[in-house]
Protein backbone atom coordinates (compact mmCIF):
# COMPACT_ATOMS: atom_id res chain seq x y z
CA UNK A 1 0.00 0.00 0.00
CA UNK A 2 2.71 2.43 1.03
CA UNK A 3 4.79 1.31 -1.95
CA UNK A 4 1.98 1.94 -4.33
CA UNK A 5 1.70 5.43 -3.02
CA UNK A 6 5.39 5.99 -3.55
CA UNK A 7 5.11 4.72 -7.09
CA UNK A 8 2.20 7.02 -7.79
CA UNK A 9 4.16 9.92 -6.41
CA UNK A 10 7.08 9.22 -8.66
CA UNK A 11 4.81 8.81 -11.65
CA UNK A 12 3.23 12.16 -10.81
CA UNK A 13 6.62 13.77 -10.45
CA UNK A 14 7.80 12.30 -13.73
CA UNK A 15 4.82 13.62 -15.66
CA UNK A 16 5.18 16.98 -13.92
CA UNK A 17 8.84 17.19 -14.95
CA UNK A 18 7.91 16.39 -18.54
CA UNK A 19 5.31 19.15 -18.55
CA UNK A 20 7.67 21.66 -17.00
CA UNK A 21 10.40 20.74 -19.48
CA UNK A 22 8.06 21.23 -22.41
CA UNK A 23 6.83 24.51 -21.09
CA UNK A 24 10.30 25.79 -20.27
CA UNK A 25 11.71 25.03 -23.70
CA UNK A 26 11.38 28.62 -24.99
CA UNK A 27 13.20 29.80 -21.86
CA UNK A 28 15.95 27.32 -22.53
CA UNK A 29 16.07 28.56 -26.11
CA UNK A 30 16.58 32.08 -24.79
CA UNK A 31 19.60 30.95 -22.79
CA UNK A 32 21.07 28.94 -25.66
CA UNK A 33 20.59 31.80 -28.07
CA UNK A 34 22.41 34.09 -25.68
CA UNK A 35 25.39 31.77 -26.16
CA UNK A 36 25.13 31.47 -29.94
CA UNK A 37 26.61 33.60 -32.67
CA UNK A 38 24.25 35.13 -35.23
CA UNK A 39 25.09 32.45 -37.76
CA UNK A 40 24.34 29.61 -35.38
CA UNK A 41 20.89 31.05 -34.71
CA UNK A 42 19.87 30.35 -38.29
CA UNK A 43 21.73 27.04 -38.70
CA UNK A 44 19.97 23.84 -39.75
CA UNK A 45 19.75 21.44 -38.03
CA UNK A 46 19.31 23.67 -34.98
CA UNK A 47 22.03 23.18 -32.40
CA UNK A 48 20.87 22.51 -28.88
CA UNK A 49 24.18 23.54 -27.45
CA UNK A 50 26.40 26.08 -29.17
CA UNK A 51 29.75 24.99 -30.57
CA UNK A 52 31.61 27.81 -28.87
CA UNK A 53 29.47 29.08 -26.02
CA UNK A 54 30.14 32.74 -25.58
CA UNK A 55 28.30 34.23 -22.63
CA UNK A 56 28.91 37.92 -22.67
CA UNK A 57 27.03 38.61 -19.43
CA UNK A 58 29.70 40.74 -17.80
CA UNK A 59 30.35 42.68 -20.96
CA UNK A 60 26.63 43.31 -21.55
CA UNK A 61 26.06 44.26 -17.91
CA UNK A 62 28.82 46.84 -17.98
CA UNK A 63 28.30 48.20 -21.46
CA UNK A 64 24.56 48.60 -20.95
CA UNK A 65 24.93 49.90 -17.39
CA UNK A 66 22.26 47.41 -16.45
CA UNK A 67 22.51 48.22 -12.76
CA UNK A 68 20.87 51.60 -13.30
CA UNK A 69 18.20 50.18 -15.58
CA UNK A 70 17.30 47.41 -13.16
CA UNK A 71 17.14 49.84 -10.26
CA UNK A 72 14.68 51.98 -12.21
CA UNK A 73 12.62 48.93 -13.10
CA UNK A 74 12.46 48.02 -9.44
CA UNK A 75 11.47 51.54 -8.39
CA UNK A 76 8.66 51.62 -10.92
CA UNK A 77 7.43 48.13 -10.03
CA UNK A 78 7.45 48.82 -6.30
CA UNK A 79 5.68 52.14 -6.76
CA UNK A 80 2.97 50.64 -8.94
CA UNK A 81 2.44 47.68 -6.63
CA UNK A 82 2.19 49.92 -3.58
CA UNK A 83 -0.44 52.18 -5.14
CA UNK A 84 -2.40 49.27 -6.52
CA UNK A 85 -2.43 47.26 -3.30
CA UNK A 86 -3.37 50.23 -1.14
CA UNK A 87 -6.17 51.39 -3.40
CA UNK A 88 -7.32 48.12 -4.89
CA UNK A 89 -7.58 45.75 -1.94
CA UNK A 90 -10.36 47.65 -0.24
CA UNK A 91 -12.14 48.11 -3.53
CA UNK A 92 -12.00 44.41 -4.34
CA UNK A 93 -13.37 43.65 -0.89
CA UNK A 94 -16.22 46.13 -1.16
CA UNK A 95 -17.17 44.89 -4.59
CA UNK A 96 -17.22 41.30 -3.35
CA UNK A 97 -19.28 42.07 -0.28
CA UNK A 98 -21.93 44.48 -1.39
CA UNK A 99 -24.38 43.63 -4.09
CA UNK A 100 -26.31 46.44 -5.65
CA UNK A 101 -26.90 47.99 -8.99
CA UNK A 102 -24.41 50.73 -8.11
CA UNK A 103 -21.74 48.23 -7.29
CA UNK A 104 -22.42 46.46 -10.57
CA UNK A 105 -21.96 49.73 -12.37
CA UNK A 106 -18.74 50.35 -10.46
CA UNK A 107 -17.37 46.90 -11.28
CA UNK A 108 -18.33 47.37 -14.91
CA UNK A 109 -16.67 50.78 -15.07
CA UNK A 110 -13.51 49.46 -13.49
CA UNK A 111 -13.28 46.65 -16.03
CA UNK A 112 -13.81 49.11 -18.87
CA UNK A 113 -10.91 51.25 -17.71
CA UNK A 114 -8.35 48.75 -18.87
CA UNK A 115 -9.87 48.04 -22.23
CA UNK A 116 -7.30 49.79 -24.42
CA UNK A 117 -3.72 48.61 -24.85
CA UNK A 118 -1.06 50.95 -23.47
CA UNK A 119 0.09 51.75 -26.97
CA UNK A 120 -3.25 53.40 -27.70
CA UNK A 121 -3.45 55.16 -24.33
CA UNK A 122 -0.03 56.72 -24.48
CA UNK A 123 -0.78 59.67 -26.75
CA UNK A 124 -3.51 61.21 -24.58
CA UNK A 125 -1.56 60.36 -21.43
CA UNK A 126 1.55 62.04 -22.78
CA UNK A 127 -0.36 65.13 -23.81
CA UNK A 128 -2.26 65.52 -20.55
CA UNK A 129 0.76 64.76 -18.36
CA UNK A 130 2.81 67.31 -20.22
CA UNK A 131 0.07 69.92 -19.81
CA UNK A 132 -0.09 69.51 -16.03
CA UNK A 133 3.70 69.38 -15.76
CA UNK A 134 3.84 65.81 -14.56
CA UNK A 135 6.46 64.92 -17.17
CA UNK A 136 9.04 66.69 -15.04
CA UNK A 137 8.74 63.68 -12.75
CA UNK A 138 9.08 60.96 -15.35
CA UNK A 139 9.24 57.88 -13.13
CA UNK A 140 6.28 59.10 -11.10
CA UNK A 141 4.39 59.61 -14.35
CA UNK A 142 5.05 56.04 -15.37
CA UNK A 143 4.07 54.74 -11.94
CA UNK A 144 0.75 56.61 -12.02
CA UNK A 145 -0.05 55.60 -15.59
CA UNK A 146 0.90 51.97 -15.08
CA UNK A 147 -0.96 51.79 -11.75
CA UNK A 148 -4.09 52.96 -13.54
CA UNK A 149 -3.48 50.35 -16.22
CA UNK A 150 -3.21 47.39 -13.85
CA UNK A 151 -5.51 48.49 -11.04
CA UNK A 152 -8.66 47.05 -12.66
CA UNK A 153 -6.87 43.74 -13.08
CA UNK A 154 -5.94 43.68 -9.41
CA UNK A 155 -9.44 44.67 -8.28
CA UNK A 156 -11.09 41.92 -10.31
CA UNK A 157 -8.70 39.31 -8.98
CA UNK A 158 -8.93 40.28 -5.33
CA UNK A 159 -12.68 40.61 -5.68
CA UNK A 160 -12.80 36.96 -6.71
CA UNK A 161 -10.67 35.99 -3.72
CA UNK A 162 -12.77 37.95 -1.24
CA UNK A 163 -15.84 36.37 -2.75
CA UNK A 164 -14.49 32.99 -1.71
CA UNK A 165 -14.13 34.00 1.94
CA UNK A 166 -17.16 32.65 3.77
CA UNK A 167 -19.39 35.46 4.85
CA UNK A 168 -20.25 33.81 8.16
CA UNK A 169 -16.74 34.40 9.51
CA UNK A 170 -16.96 38.12 8.98
CA UNK A 171 -20.43 38.26 10.41
CA UNK A 172 -19.47 36.50 13.58
CA UNK A 173 -16.59 38.95 13.99
CA UNK A 174 -19.04 41.81 13.60
CA UNK A 175 -21.40 40.26 16.09
CA UNK A 176 -18.49 40.00 18.51
CA UNK A 177 -18.25 43.78 18.33
CA UNK A 178 -15.56 44.35 15.73
CA UNK A 179 -15.89 47.37 13.50
CA UNK A 180 -16.06 46.71 9.77
CA UNK A 181 -12.55 47.98 9.33
CA UNK A 182 -11.42 45.78 12.18
CA UNK A 183 -13.15 42.75 10.65
CA UNK A 184 -11.66 43.56 7.27
CA UNK A 185 -8.12 43.51 8.64
CA UNK A 186 -8.54 40.67 11.12
CA UNK A 187 -10.72 38.29 9.08
CA UNK A 188 -10.97 39.11 5.38
CA UNK A 189 -7.43 40.14 4.60
CA UNK A 190 -5.79 37.19 6.34
CA UNK A 191 -8.17 34.74 4.69
CA UNK A 192 -7.70 36.29 1.28
CA UNK A 193 -3.98 36.81 1.67
CA UNK A 194 -2.98 34.22 -0.93
CA UNK A 195 -5.08 35.83 -3.57
CA UNK A 196 -3.86 39.28 -2.61
CA UNK A 197 -0.25 38.14 -2.56
CA UNK A 198 -0.45 36.39 -5.90
CA UNK A 199 -2.31 39.27 -7.56
CA UNK A 200 0.22 41.75 -6.16
CA UNK A 201 3.05 39.57 -7.38
CA UNK A 202 1.61 39.38 -10.88
CA UNK A 203 1.21 43.17 -10.85
CA UNK A 204 4.76 43.60 -9.63
CA UNK A 205 6.17 41.39 -12.36
CA UNK A 206 4.05 42.97 -15.04
CA UNK A 207 5.19 46.43 -13.98
CA UNK A 208 8.79 45.28 -13.94
CA UNK A 209 8.29 44.59 -17.62
CA UNK A 210 6.43 47.81 -18.38
CA UNK A 211 7.67 49.25 -21.64
CA UNK A 212 5.28 51.46 -23.60
CA UNK A 213 4.78 54.19 -20.98
CA UNK A 214 8.40 54.21 -19.85
CA UNK A 215 9.76 54.61 -23.32
CA UNK A 216 7.51 57.57 -24.08
CA UNK A 217 7.39 59.36 -20.73
CA UNK A 218 11.00 58.96 -19.58
CA UNK A 219 13.49 60.80 -21.73
CA UNK A 220 16.57 60.61 -19.56
CA UNK A 221 18.57 57.45 -19.96
CA UNK A 222 19.47 57.47 -16.28
CA UNK A 223 15.83 57.08 -15.30
CA UNK A 224 14.75 54.46 -17.82
CA UNK A 225 13.89 50.87 -16.85
CA UNK A 226 15.49 47.71 -18.19
CA UNK A 227 12.87 47.08 -20.86
CA UNK A 228 13.74 50.36 -22.54
CA UNK A 229 17.44 49.58 -22.32
CA UNK A 230 16.78 46.29 -24.06
CA UNK A 231 15.75 48.17 -27.19
CA UNK A 232 19.29 49.45 -27.67
CA UNK A 233 20.12 46.16 -29.32
CA UNK A 234 17.63 46.83 -32.09
CA UNK A 235 18.93 49.23 -34.71
CA UNK A 236 17.14 50.49 -37.80
CA UNK A 237 18.68 47.77 -39.95
CA UNK A 238 20.32 45.47 -37.46
CA UNK A 239 19.27 43.46 -34.44
CA UNK A 240 21.82 42.05 -32.05
CA UNK A 241 19.82 38.99 -31.00
CA UNK A 242 22.64 37.53 -28.98
CA UNK A 243 22.80 40.79 -27.02
CA UNK A 244 19.03 40.85 -26.53
CA UNK A 245 19.02 37.32 -25.18
CA UNK A 246 22.03 37.85 -22.94
CA UNK A 247 20.45 40.96 -21.50
CA UNK A 248 17.15 39.12 -21.06
CA UNK A 249 18.89 36.19 -19.39
CA UNK A 250 20.49 38.53 -16.88
CA UNK A 251 17.13 40.12 -16.23
CA UNK A 252 15.01 36.97 -16.09
CA UNK A 253 17.25 34.53 -14.22
CA UNK A 254 17.15 36.16 -10.77
CA UNK A 255 13.37 36.50 -11.01
CA UNK A 256 12.90 32.85 -11.92
CA UNK A 257 15.20 31.75 -9.11
CA UNK A 258 13.44 34.06 -6.69
CA UNK A 259 10.20 32.43 -7.70
CA UNK A 260 11.35 28.89 -7.45
CA UNK A 261 12.44 29.57 -3.89
CA UNK A 262 9.73 31.97 -2.87
CA UNK A 263 7.11 29.63 -4.29
CA UNK A 264 7.68 27.49 -1.21
CA UNK A 265 6.53 30.32 0.99
CA UNK A 266 3.61 31.25 -1.20
CA UNK A 267 2.51 27.70 -1.68
CA UNK A 268 2.83 26.70 1.92
CA UNK A 269 0.53 29.65 2.50
CA UNK A 270 -1.69 28.41 -0.28
CA UNK A 271 -2.07 24.88 0.92
CA UNK A 272 -2.18 25.51 4.62
CA UNK A 273 -4.74 28.26 4.22
CA UNK A 274 -6.52 29.22 7.41
CA UNK A 275 -9.63 27.54 6.09
CA UNK A 276 -8.35 24.04 6.39
Amino acid at each position, binding site marked *: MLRDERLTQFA*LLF*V*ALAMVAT*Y*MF*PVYWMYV*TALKTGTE*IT*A*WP*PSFWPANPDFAAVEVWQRMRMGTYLKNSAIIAVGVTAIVVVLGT*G*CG*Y*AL*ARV*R*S*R*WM*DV*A*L*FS*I*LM*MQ*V*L*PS*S*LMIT*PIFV*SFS*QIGLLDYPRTSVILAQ*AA*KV*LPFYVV*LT*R*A*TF*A*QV*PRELEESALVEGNS*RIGAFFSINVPLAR*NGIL*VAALLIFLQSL*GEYVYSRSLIQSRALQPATVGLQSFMGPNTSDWQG*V*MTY*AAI*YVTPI*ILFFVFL*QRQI*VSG*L*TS*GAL*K
Partner: protein
Amino acid sequence: MTVPLSTTDSMPTVGTIRASGPSFRDGRGLDRVLVWLTLGFLVAFSALPLVYNVVMSFQSVDLFTIASFDRPFVGLDNYKAVLSQRATGTIVRNTAVFVGLSVALQLTIGFGLALYFQQRFPGSTWLRGLFLAGWIMPGLVVGGVWSWILAGDFGVMNWALQATGITSDKIFWLSDPSIALYSVIIANVWVGVPFNMILLSVGLAAIPDDVYEAAEMDGAGRIWRFLTITLPLMRAQLGAVISLGIIFTLQQFDLFAALTQGGPSNGSNVMQYWSWELSFQHYRIGQGAAVSVLMILVVICVAAIYVRSTRHEHAA
Protein backbone atom coordinates in the same frame (compact mmCIF):
# COMPACT_ATOMS: atom_id res chain seq x y z
CA MET B 1 -25.07 60.81 -0.23
CA THR B 2 -27.79 58.28 0.35
CA VAL B 3 -27.73 55.79 -2.42
CA PRO B 4 -29.89 52.94 -1.24
CA LEU B 5 -28.15 49.61 -1.19
CA SER B 6 -30.52 47.21 -2.80
CA THR B 7 -30.03 43.61 -1.82
CA THR B 8 -30.59 40.60 -3.96
CA ASP B 9 -32.46 37.53 -2.89
CA SER B 10 -29.51 35.26 -3.41
CA MET B 11 -27.70 37.02 -0.57
CA PRO B 12 -29.73 36.69 2.58
CA THR B 13 -26.69 37.56 4.70
CA VAL B 14 -26.65 41.14 3.56
CA GLY B 15 -30.03 41.52 5.12
CA THR B 16 -28.62 40.19 8.35
CA ILE B 17 -25.85 42.72 8.36
CA ARG B 18 -28.24 45.52 7.70
CA ALA B 19 -30.45 44.54 10.58
CA SER B 20 -27.63 44.38 13.06
CA GLY B 21 -27.36 47.92 14.26
CA PRO B 22 -25.84 51.34 13.72
CA SER B 23 -22.20 50.36 13.32
CA PHE B 24 -23.09 48.71 10.04
CA ARG B 25 -24.49 51.88 8.61
CA ASP B 26 -21.00 53.34 8.83
CA GLY B 27 -19.98 50.11 7.17
CA ARG B 28 -21.92 50.90 4.06
CA GLY B 29 -20.19 54.24 3.88
CA LEU B 30 -16.90 52.39 4.10
CA ASP B 31 -17.73 50.29 1.07
CA ARG B 32 -18.52 53.37 -0.92
CA VAL B 33 -15.33 55.14 0.10
CA LEU B 34 -13.27 52.10 -0.82
CA VAL B 35 -14.82 51.86 -4.27
CA TRP B 36 -14.69 55.58 -4.92
CA LEU B 37 -11.00 55.80 -4.06
CA THR B 38 -10.19 53.38 -6.84
CA LEU B 39 -12.75 54.75 -9.24
CA GLY B 40 -11.48 58.28 -8.67
CA PHE B 41 -7.93 57.26 -9.45
CA LEU B 42 -9.04 55.43 -12.56
CA VAL B 43 -11.22 58.28 -13.76
CA ALA B 44 -8.27 60.64 -13.40
CA PHE B 45 -5.75 58.48 -15.22
CA SER B 46 -7.69 56.07 -17.45
CA ALA B 47 -11.05 57.54 -18.31
CA LEU B 48 -9.60 60.61 -19.93
CA PRO B 49 -7.46 58.71 -22.45
CA LEU B 50 -10.44 56.49 -23.17
CA VAL B 51 -12.75 59.41 -23.88
CA TYR B 52 -10.01 61.04 -25.88
CA ASN B 53 -9.84 58.00 -28.14
CA VAL B 54 -13.59 57.95 -28.59
CA VAL B 55 -13.65 61.64 -29.50
CA MET B 56 -10.79 61.21 -31.96
CA SER B 57 -12.67 58.47 -33.74
CA PHE B 58 -15.23 61.07 -34.85
CA GLN B 59 -12.65 63.65 -35.88
CA SER B 60 -10.19 64.22 -38.65
CA VAL B 61 -6.92 63.94 -36.76
CA ASP B 62 -3.56 64.95 -38.09
CA LEU B 63 -0.33 63.66 -36.60
CA PHE B 64 0.39 67.19 -35.40
CA THR B 65 -3.00 68.08 -33.96
CA ILE B 66 -2.99 65.37 -31.31
CA ALA B 67 -2.67 67.87 -28.46
CA SER B 68 -5.90 69.78 -28.98
CA PHE B 69 -9.52 68.74 -29.04
CA ASP B 70 -10.19 71.48 -31.56
CA ARG B 71 -10.31 69.38 -34.70
CA PRO B 72 -12.88 69.08 -37.44
CA PHE B 73 -15.60 66.56 -36.67
CA VAL B 74 -16.24 64.17 -39.53
CA GLY B 75 -19.12 62.14 -38.14
CA LEU B 76 -18.81 58.47 -38.99
CA ASP B 77 -16.29 58.93 -41.79
CA ASN B 78 -13.50 57.15 -39.94
CA TYR B 79 -15.76 54.19 -39.26
CA LYS B 80 -16.88 54.08 -42.85
CA ALA B 81 -13.29 54.23 -44.07
CA VAL B 82 -12.25 51.43 -41.74
CA LEU B 83 -15.22 49.18 -42.43
CA SER B 84 -15.01 49.59 -46.19
CA GLN B 85 -11.46 48.27 -46.44
CA ARG B 86 -11.08 44.93 -48.09
CA ALA B 87 -9.04 43.53 -45.21
CA THR B 88 -11.65 44.37 -42.57
CA GLY B 89 -13.56 41.09 -42.80
CA THR B 90 -10.39 39.03 -42.50
CA ILE B 91 -9.13 41.07 -39.59
CA VAL B 92 -12.37 40.85 -37.63
CA ARG B 93 -12.55 37.10 -38.22
CA ASN B 94 -8.90 36.71 -37.21
CA THR B 95 -9.53 38.65 -34.02
CA ALA B 96 -12.44 36.40 -33.08
CA VAL B 97 -10.43 33.25 -33.77
CA PHE B 98 -7.40 34.62 -31.96
CA VAL B 99 -9.31 35.58 -28.83
CA GLY B 100 -11.59 32.54 -28.79
CA LEU B 101 -8.91 29.93 -29.31
CA SER B 102 -6.30 31.62 -27.14
CA VAL B 103 -8.61 31.98 -24.16
CA ALA B 104 -10.07 28.48 -24.51
CA LEU B 105 -6.64 26.86 -24.73
CA GLN B 106 -5.08 28.96 -22.00
CA LEU B 107 -7.92 28.22 -19.69
CA THR B 108 -8.00 24.49 -20.40
CA ILE B 109 -4.25 24.05 -20.09
CA GLY B 110 -3.98 26.43 -17.15
CA PHE B 111 -6.81 24.75 -15.26
CA GLY B 112 -5.44 21.31 -16.07
CA LEU B 113 -2.02 22.25 -14.76
CA ALA B 114 -3.50 23.88 -11.67
CA LEU B 115 -5.42 20.70 -10.88
CA TYR B 116 -2.41 18.53 -11.59
CA PHE B 117 -0.09 20.48 -9.32
CA GLN B 118 -2.77 20.53 -6.65
CA GLN B 119 -1.89 16.87 -6.06
CA ARG B 120 0.81 16.25 -3.50
CA PHE B 121 4.05 14.85 -4.81
CA PRO B 122 7.67 15.76 -4.24
CA GLY B 123 8.59 19.00 -5.97
CA SER B 124 5.00 19.90 -6.78
CA THR B 125 5.32 23.25 -5.06
CA TRP B 126 8.44 24.67 -6.60
CA LEU B 127 7.98 23.17 -10.05
CA ARG B 128 4.82 25.22 -10.26
CA GLY B 129 6.85 28.39 -9.80
CA LEU B 130 8.72 27.74 -13.03
CA PHE B 131 5.57 28.27 -15.04
CA LEU B 132 5.73 31.96 -14.21
CA ALA B 133 8.59 32.27 -16.69
CA GLY B 134 6.11 33.03 -19.45
CA TRP B 135 4.79 35.96 -17.46
CA ILE B 136 8.10 37.63 -16.74
CA MET B 137 9.91 37.38 -20.06
CA PRO B 138 9.90 40.73 -21.87
CA GLY B 139 7.67 40.82 -24.95
CA LEU B 140 10.57 41.46 -27.30
CA VAL B 141 12.31 38.33 -26.02
CA VAL B 142 9.25 36.09 -26.20
CA GLY B 143 8.68 37.28 -29.75
CA GLY B 144 12.29 36.67 -30.75
CA VAL B 145 12.44 33.20 -29.25
CA TRP B 146 9.18 32.07 -30.83
CA SER B 147 10.20 33.49 -34.19
CA TRP B 148 13.19 31.14 -34.21
CA ILE B 149 11.26 28.18 -32.86
CA LEU B 150 8.65 28.62 -35.59
CA ALA B 151 11.00 29.68 -38.40
CA GLY B 152 10.31 27.59 -41.48
CA ASP B 153 13.87 26.94 -42.59
CA PHE B 154 15.78 26.51 -39.37
CA GLY B 155 13.11 26.41 -36.67
CA VAL B 156 13.38 23.83 -33.95
CA MET B 157 9.65 23.08 -34.21
CA ASN B 158 10.09 21.80 -37.76
CA TRP B 159 13.18 19.94 -36.69
CA ALA B 160 11.25 18.17 -33.93
CA LEU B 161 8.35 17.31 -36.23
CA GLN B 162 10.67 15.88 -38.85
CA ALA B 163 12.85 14.03 -36.36
CA THR B 164 9.81 12.30 -34.88
CA GLY B 165 8.46 11.57 -38.34
CA ILE B 166 5.24 13.53 -37.87
CA THR B 167 5.85 15.59 -40.98
CA SER B 168 8.28 15.17 -43.84
CA ASP B 169 8.09 18.67 -45.30
CA LYS B 170 8.93 21.84 -43.50
CA ILE B 171 5.93 23.82 -42.40
CA PHE B 172 6.17 27.55 -42.87
CA TRP B 173 4.48 28.44 -39.63
CA LEU B 174 4.79 32.17 -39.94
CA SER B 175 4.67 32.84 -43.67
CA ASP B 176 1.89 30.52 -44.79
CA PRO B 177 -1.17 32.78 -44.71
CA SER B 178 -3.44 29.93 -43.63
CA ILE B 179 -1.24 28.95 -40.67
CA ALA B 180 0.35 32.19 -39.47
CA LEU B 181 -2.53 33.16 -37.18
CA TYR B 182 -2.46 29.80 -35.44
CA SER B 183 1.28 30.11 -34.90
CA VAL B 184 0.75 33.39 -33.09
CA ILE B 185 -1.98 31.68 -31.05
CA ILE B 186 0.46 28.94 -30.01
CA ALA B 187 2.92 31.53 -28.76
CA ASN B 188 0.16 33.52 -27.08
CA VAL B 189 -1.16 30.46 -25.26
CA TRP B 190 2.35 29.93 -23.94
CA VAL B 191 2.32 33.49 -22.62
CA GLY B 192 -1.15 33.17 -21.07
CA VAL B 193 -0.92 29.79 -19.36
CA PRO B 194 0.93 31.01 -16.22
CA PHE B 195 -1.67 33.66 -15.51
CA ASN B 196 -4.49 31.12 -15.72
CA MET B 197 -2.66 28.43 -13.84
CA ILE B 198 -1.49 30.52 -10.89
CA LEU B 199 -4.81 32.25 -10.32
CA LEU B 200 -6.80 29.05 -10.59
CA SER B 201 -4.35 27.42 -8.16
CA VAL B 202 -5.17 30.11 -5.65
CA GLY B 203 -8.85 29.45 -6.15
CA LEU B 204 -8.42 25.71 -5.77
CA ALA B 205 -6.42 26.11 -2.58
CA ALA B 206 -9.18 28.19 -1.07
CA ILE B 207 -11.67 25.33 -1.31
CA PRO B 208 -11.81 23.69 2.11
CA ASP B 209 -10.68 20.07 2.15
CA ASP B 210 -13.63 18.94 4.25
CA VAL B 211 -15.99 19.69 1.37
CA TYR B 212 -14.18 17.10 -0.71
CA GLU B 213 -13.89 14.66 2.16
CA ALA B 214 -17.61 14.76 2.73
CA ALA B 215 -18.25 14.11 -0.93
CA GLU B 216 -15.74 11.30 -1.01
CA MET B 217 -17.51 9.67 1.87
CA ASP B 218 -20.73 9.91 -0.09
CA GLY B 219 -18.95 7.90 -2.76
CA ALA B 220 -18.75 10.64 -5.37
CA GLY B 221 -16.24 9.96 -8.15
CA ARG B 222 -13.48 12.28 -9.23
CA ILE B 223 -15.28 13.72 -12.24
CA TRP B 224 -18.50 14.09 -10.31
CA ARG B 225 -16.67 15.89 -7.52
CA PHE B 226 -15.03 18.21 -10.05
CA LEU B 227 -18.35 19.06 -11.66
CA THR B 228 -20.38 19.44 -8.52
CA ILE B 229 -17.88 20.88 -6.07
CA THR B 230 -14.83 22.34 -7.77
CA LEU B 231 -16.50 24.14 -10.64
CA PRO B 232 -19.25 25.85 -8.62
CA LEU B 233 -16.81 26.90 -5.91
CA MET B 234 -14.41 28.26 -8.52
CA ARG B 235 -17.08 30.35 -10.15
CA ALA B 236 -15.73 33.71 -9.01
CA GLN B 237 -12.17 32.83 -9.98
CA LEU B 238 -13.16 31.41 -13.35
CA GLY B 239 -15.28 34.45 -14.15
CA ALA B 240 -12.39 36.76 -13.30
CA VAL B 241 -9.79 34.73 -15.16
CA ILE B 242 -11.88 34.34 -18.31
CA SER B 243 -12.92 37.97 -18.55
CA LEU B 244 -9.41 39.23 -17.81
CA GLY B 245 -8.04 36.65 -20.23
CA ILE B 246 -10.25 37.98 -23.01
CA ILE B 247 -9.22 41.55 -22.28
CA PHE B 248 -5.53 40.60 -22.15
CA THR B 249 -5.73 38.66 -25.37
CA LEU B 250 -7.34 41.66 -27.02
CA GLN B 251 -4.27 43.62 -25.98
CA GLN B 252 -1.64 41.15 -27.17
CA PHE B 253 0.56 43.14 -29.44
CA ASP B 254 4.23 42.21 -29.04
CA LEU B 255 3.84 38.79 -30.59
CA PHE B 256 2.28 40.15 -33.77
CA ALA B 257 5.01 42.74 -34.06
CA ALA B 258 7.73 40.14 -33.58
CA LEU B 259 6.34 37.14 -35.44
CA THR B 260 4.32 38.14 -38.48
CA GLN B 261 3.65 41.89 -38.43
CA GLY B 262 0.07 40.90 -39.15
CA GLY B 263 1.11 39.25 -42.39
CA PRO B 264 1.47 37.73 -44.78
CA SER B 265 -1.09 39.89 -46.51
CA ASN B 266 -3.11 40.44 -43.31
CA GLY B 267 -3.35 36.67 -42.87
CA SER B 268 -2.64 37.07 -39.16
CA ASN B 269 -3.70 40.64 -38.59
CA VAL B 270 -6.01 41.39 -35.68
CA MET B 271 -7.82 44.52 -34.58
CA GLN B 272 -5.41 45.63 -31.87
CA TYR B 273 -2.42 45.40 -34.22
CA TRP B 274 -4.35 47.01 -37.04
CA SER B 275 -5.40 49.89 -34.82
CA TRP B 276 -1.79 50.46 -33.86
CA GLU B 277 -0.68 50.24 -37.50
CA LEU B 278 -3.27 52.78 -38.56
CA SER B 279 -2.43 55.22 -35.78
CA PHE B 280 1.32 54.95 -35.50
CA GLN B 281 2.56 53.65 -38.82
CA HIS B 282 0.16 55.12 -41.34
CA TYR B 283 -0.68 58.16 -39.18
CA ARG B 284 -4.41 57.75 -39.86
CA ILE B 285 -5.08 58.44 -36.24
CA GLY B 286 -8.82 58.92 -36.53
CA GLN B 287 -9.19 55.52 -38.17
CA GLY B 288 -6.97 53.86 -35.59
CA ALA B 289 -9.17 55.35 -32.89
CA ALA B 290 -12.28 54.07 -34.68
CA VAL B 291 -10.90 50.52 -34.62
CA SER B 292 -10.11 50.88 -30.93
CA VAL B 293 -13.68 52.01 -30.26
CA LEU B 294 -14.98 48.93 -32.07
CA MET B 295 -12.81 46.88 -29.72
CA ILE B 296 -14.22 48.76 -26.75
CA LEU B 297 -17.69 47.65 -27.85
CA VAL B 298 -16.55 44.04 -27.65
CA VAL B 299 -15.14 44.56 -24.17
CA ILE B 300 -18.38 46.21 -23.07
CA CYS B 301 -20.15 42.95 -23.88
CA VAL B 302 -17.53 40.89 -22.04
CA ALA B 303 -17.66 43.17 -19.01
CA ALA B 304 -21.45 43.11 -18.93
CA ILE B 305 -21.55 39.32 -19.08
CA TYR B 306 -18.92 39.12 -16.35
CA VAL B 307 -20.77 41.50 -14.06
CA ARG B 308 -23.98 39.51 -14.56
CA SER B 309 -22.16 36.28 -13.81
CA THR B 310 -20.98 37.61 -10.45
CA ARG B 311 -24.58 37.66 -9.24
CA HIS B 312 -24.65 33.93 -8.88
CA GLU B 313 -21.26 33.24 -7.45
CA HIS B 314 -21.67 33.15 -3.68
CA ALA B 315 -22.09 29.43 -3.55
CA ALA B 316 -19.60 29.15 -0.70
